[in-house]
């Protein structure tokens, strides 16, 4: 966005431009249209400012990306001794292991197969021996145990024989989805929804636009940025394969305008394919939220409770496109990913390609993290990521970044009374009223909070970020969403309980009745016997 203003500044005096800029940032006029290379006259845009805004809410968070975005992806990460591979690294059902302890496996070998419609398989990130299948702490704020496969690496990193496909565009669309599913690819932006399911949904709903999300709007993270700079051709190839797999025509790659190099690289790579458009979008968190991006790129709003594919749009991450390229062209399943390691406590911040299942502690050793300075460890970005209690947790498919933040980088938690500034309302991308919801949650009026739209909250954290009184708004919403879910579960359970009790009572009655009938029958039989006996005696 800044660029527009810089362009404008050439046309009009400094002060006026500044005033105009401030004016345009007022919530009523917050409205942007896609930025075009040619530059534009702000006065021509004025009518736009009164139409429906294309970006709702959002904040300008400090970027903190420079430390990692300027260096190449590190690919010589030393293979860890042991990898801890969770069976559930995706939305849906956990995968089911098909190996035994003691099995020797090769890199890329299937370890656990996907179960059910929405699930994804898990492959060996390197060659070695399976030493355990058991519960280990999950990369989750609670660090509760989940099932993992523990692989002791042999250091050879030997691939299973893979079958490269000469011309994947001769494959049928269904075949592409199948191969993507078999490679264990899930949304690598953090949503971890199985990509094959999304491709199928796209085909069924006849998608007209595929949006490739290169926004990477979270501060600190730059793994997608680097990936686009260094592997643009592969990503574009992945995009073409996805289009083929969805039987769709055109794609739009949306990149925030704070990544000019990635934009140029991607544009160059996409040049031969007129149906793949690469555009720049304003830098604003949460630009990468799917609904925000869809609204911005297509002008369409995804209705509440609908999937984006229902309005003919589907969205995939650039990392996912890269994984699809590797899976289809070379038959390589998803076994590693690029992770941003950054934060004030990291001496060597970098983007590094690591095998899935690498413990954070190994990553931190490699990047020289100072444990004394580390005040908080975060998996993902600082806005929506999860804070983790220790470093004995593995990286998974969803891990876009690991941050070791110092005390100075954390938000002040000194909570003050709400001053009713309504900043939280103007930044909420979902159009909610965070202060009202938080007030009701505080006094346990969850029903009212739900009426106010609690279920539409995406936990983006904009409201907490902007709140001048440091009120932990998003924490209230996370708590309340969990509580609402718990109550639904409790209600479901009490319904089930009632059914069980009724069933049991019916059964007891039936048994009692049967016993009673049997008793009667016995008495009748006895009477009959006695009568016969008496009759016999009488005749003799």
């Amino acid at each position: 966005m800044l660029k527009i203003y810089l362009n404008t500044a050439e046309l009009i005096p400094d002060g006026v431009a500044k005033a105009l800029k401030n004016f345009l940032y007022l919530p009523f006029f917050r409205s942007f249209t896609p930025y075009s290379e040619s530059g534009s006259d702000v006065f021509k845009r004025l009518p736009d400012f009164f139409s429906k805004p294309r970006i709702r809410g959002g904040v300008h968070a400090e970027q903190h990306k420079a430390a990692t975005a300027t260096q190449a992806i590190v690919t010589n990460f030393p293979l860890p001794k042991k990898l801890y591979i969770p069976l559930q690294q995706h939305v849906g059902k956990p995968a089911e292991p098909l190996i035994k302890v003691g099995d020797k496996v090769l890199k890329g070998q299937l370890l656990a197969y996907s179960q059910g419609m929405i699930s994804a398989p898990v492959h060996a990130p390197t060659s070695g021996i399976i030493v355990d299948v058991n519960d280990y702490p999950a990369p989750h704020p609670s660090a509760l145990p989940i099932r993992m496969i523990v692989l002791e690496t042999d250091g050879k990193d030997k691939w299973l024989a893979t079958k490269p496909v000469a011309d994947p565009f001769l494959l049928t669309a269904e075949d592409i989805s199948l191969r993507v599913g078999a490679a264990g690819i899930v949304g690598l932006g953090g949503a971890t929804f199985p990509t094959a399911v999304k491709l199928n949904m796209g085909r069924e709903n006849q998608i007209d636009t595929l949006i490739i999300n290169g926004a990477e709007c979270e501060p600190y993270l730059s793994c997608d940025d680097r990936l686009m700079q260094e592997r643009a051709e592969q990503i574009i190839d992945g995009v073409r394969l996805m289009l083929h797999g969805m039987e769709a025509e055109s794609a739009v790659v949306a990149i925030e305008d704070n990544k000019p190099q990635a934009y140029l690289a991607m544009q160059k790579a996409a040049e031969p394919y007129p149906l793949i458009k690469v555009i720049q979008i304003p830098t604003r968190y949460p630009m990468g939220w799917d609904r925000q991006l869809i609204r911005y790129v297509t002008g369409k709003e995804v209705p509440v409770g609908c999937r984006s594919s229902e309005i003919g749009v589907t969205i995939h991450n650039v990392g996912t496109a890269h994984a699809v390229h590797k899976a289809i062209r070379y038959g390589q399943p998803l076994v590693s990913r690029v992770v941003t390691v950054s934060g004030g406590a990291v001496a060597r911040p970098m983007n590094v390609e690591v095998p899935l299942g690498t413990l954070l502690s190994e990553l931190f050793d490699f990047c020289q993290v100072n444990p004394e300075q580390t005040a908080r460890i975060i998996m993902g970005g600082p806005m929506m990521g999860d804070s983790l209690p220790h470093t004995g947790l593995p990286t998974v498919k969803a891990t876009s970044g690991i941050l070791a933040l110092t005390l100075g980088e954390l938000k002040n938690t000194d909570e003050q009374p709400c001053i009713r500034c309504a900043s939280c309302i103007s930044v909420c991308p979902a159009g909610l009223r965070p202060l009202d919801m938080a007030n009701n949650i505080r006094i346990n009026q969850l029903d009212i909070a739900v009426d106010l739209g609690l279920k539409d909250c995406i936990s983006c954290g904009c409201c907490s970020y902007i709140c001048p009184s440091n009120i932990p708004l998003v924490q209230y919403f996370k708590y309340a969403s969990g509580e609402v879910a718990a109550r639904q579960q409790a209600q479901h359970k009490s319904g089930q309980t009632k059914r069980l009790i009724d069933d049991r009572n019916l059964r007891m009655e039936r048994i009692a009745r049967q016993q009673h009938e049997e008793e009667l029958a016995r008495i009748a039989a006895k009477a009959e016997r006695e009568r016969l006996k008496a009759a016999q005696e009488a005749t003799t």
Partner: protein
Amino acid sequence: MYVLSAIISLTLLGLVLGFLLGIAAKYLKVESSPIVDELESLLPGSQCGQCGFPGCRPAAEALVAGKAASTICPPGGSALAEQIAALLGLELDLSAVKEPELLVARVSEATCTGCTRCFKVCPTDAIVGAPKQIHVVVADACIGCKKCIEVCPTECLQMHPIDVTLRNWRWTKPALPVASNAVC
């Protein structure tokens, strides 16, 4: 003669009183209040008596009569209290409700003799087993009524808190700031 008159008078008395009672039963019949029925269907129905009433229906009647607060049912917790308050149009003060600490029964395999007593009393059929086999409690179906605990001859049934897993882990509520006037 005395005997006969006694029989006749008592029979008559019986007939008349019976007739009157019959009429009274027909015309003075107390309808079961629909609101009590509805409340009863909300309550857990395990007749556990933790509310201090002999069962769920008496508790529902007390609620309708205004003799009990909507927060009376401990196993129901605040979710149930909210439903009751909504049904009866009551003001609700949830600060008094303690979320029930959910417990489930668990059999210790070492001492179970397979006597099947617990299996017979469990109101929700949460216990599975067969004679002389170790019994086991299906935690998802157990409502923590403790009936099985009372009958187990070897004390091998014990109540345990429900295991926290990723499925039922929840964020905790943010603590209020120390200066408690900071409520917006």
